[in-house]
């Protein structure tokens, strides 16, 4: 290995296919994690709105605690502590769970903003029409609450995408792990794989940010 060349295009092109392969794991973790967060977030948002004070307070503290502690430690916790209780998942499944739960707490706030933005008259109308509380929430309020917050949810989707490299710490072979532990530690050349990973992240983030901005504009036109 020559120490002089800082950037070797041949080497960069050589490792690119392997990185693109790993990108699939990264994207899969993002999409599945977001699926979990959409469901978990709704659950937490409902818990937070519960009329039973103990439940709503529990919802508040769960959200606060998850948002106030590092995702990395949460991942370690699930990865190392759950097996002690006989709960064993693959690293990838553990990672998905961790990502999903972490972002559920953020999504709960997104749902909350959406639900709060539905005019009070809608609730009153539902009462006047003798809708049950549950029916009001799921058929009347939620369909109006979700569309305005889709851009905010999109921002968290991108944020989650950028958090997937943390899964490398629990040995999930996503993009960063591949660059650092599969490629870098074998060839001792980190510049190309690391830079490529950065560029790949930047490309996906910029494209999705543009998509979200477009979505936002579309939403504004509708309302």
């Amino acid at each position: 290995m020559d120490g002089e060349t800082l950037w070797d295009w041949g080497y960069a092109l050589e490792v690119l296919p392997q990185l693109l392969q790993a990108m699939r794991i990264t994207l899969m973790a993002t999409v599945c994690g977001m699926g979990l967060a959409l469901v978990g977030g709704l659950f937490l948002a409902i818990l937070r709105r519960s009329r039973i004070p103990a439940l709503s307070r529990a919802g508040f503290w769960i959200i606060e605690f998850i948002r106030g502690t590092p995702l990395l430690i949460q991942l370690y916790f699930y990865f190392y502590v759950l097996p002690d209780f006989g709960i064993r998942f693959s690293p990838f499944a553990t990672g998905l769970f961790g990502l999903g739960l972490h972002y559920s707490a953020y999504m709960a706030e997104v749902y909350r903003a959406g639900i709060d933005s539905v005019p009070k008259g809608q609730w009153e109308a539902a009462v006047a029409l003798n809708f049950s509380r549950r029916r009001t929430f799921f058929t009347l309020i939620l369909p109006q609450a979700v569309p305005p917050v889709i851009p905010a949810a999109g921002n968290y989707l991108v944020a989650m995408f950028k958090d997937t490299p943390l899964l490398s710490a629990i040995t999930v072979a996503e993009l960063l792990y591949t660059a650092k532990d599969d490629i870098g530690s074998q060839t001792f050349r980190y510049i190309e794989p690391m830079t490529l990973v950065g560029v790949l992240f930047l490309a996906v983030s910029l494209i999705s940010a543009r998509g979200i901005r477009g979505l936002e504009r579309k939403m504004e036109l509708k309302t």
Partner: protein
Amino acid sequence: MALSPPFDLVPPLYQGLLITLQLTAGGIVLATALAFLAGLGKLSHHRPVRWLSATYVEIFRGTSALVQLFWFYFVLPHFGVHVEAMPVGILVLGLNAGAYGAEVVRGSVNAVAKGQREAAVSLGFSPRQTLWRILVPQAVVSMLPPMSNIYIELLKNSALVSLVTLSELTFTAMTLRADTLRTGAIFSIVLLMYFGCSQVISLGMRGLEARLSRGRDLGGIR
């Protein structure tokens, strides 16, 4: 002095916590400076300054904090820069949070009522005076709540620096885990320590906000 379990784990973890606090404090100072630099830079009349600020913000908001950390840690030595984990950690945490903060600074300065700027012009204030005497002091109050979130994100991201072997709280927890195998107790304490720190940041920023918005009826206070 022998503490009963699980409290015997606290003193070693406390050593790590101190490093985490240094890391976070350094990161917050750097991030705040960069947020003002790039945020105001994006509002500059000079095209290159605007362009430079925007590029910085896009790059650091567009990539993952962990990737940034590894990039600096593994790539800087190739330029002959010898790096210690601590300065690199502070640098990356600051650069990352600063990029998010820049958008907050820009947004808050832009959100100051237009009449304020016009009044400053009509009173013969120079652009610099307008910015620092009129716009920024009013904008700071509305910056605080989003900045509080960014600082908490920074604290949480400081755990990532453990992956480049700085013996902060997370790293200490991992070594302690390897020594004692008391995984559940260790991570529970660590989670509580981080949670305590983020609550302190949150309360501190709320206190600051209440103090700065005293006697004002503007600036996004509820």
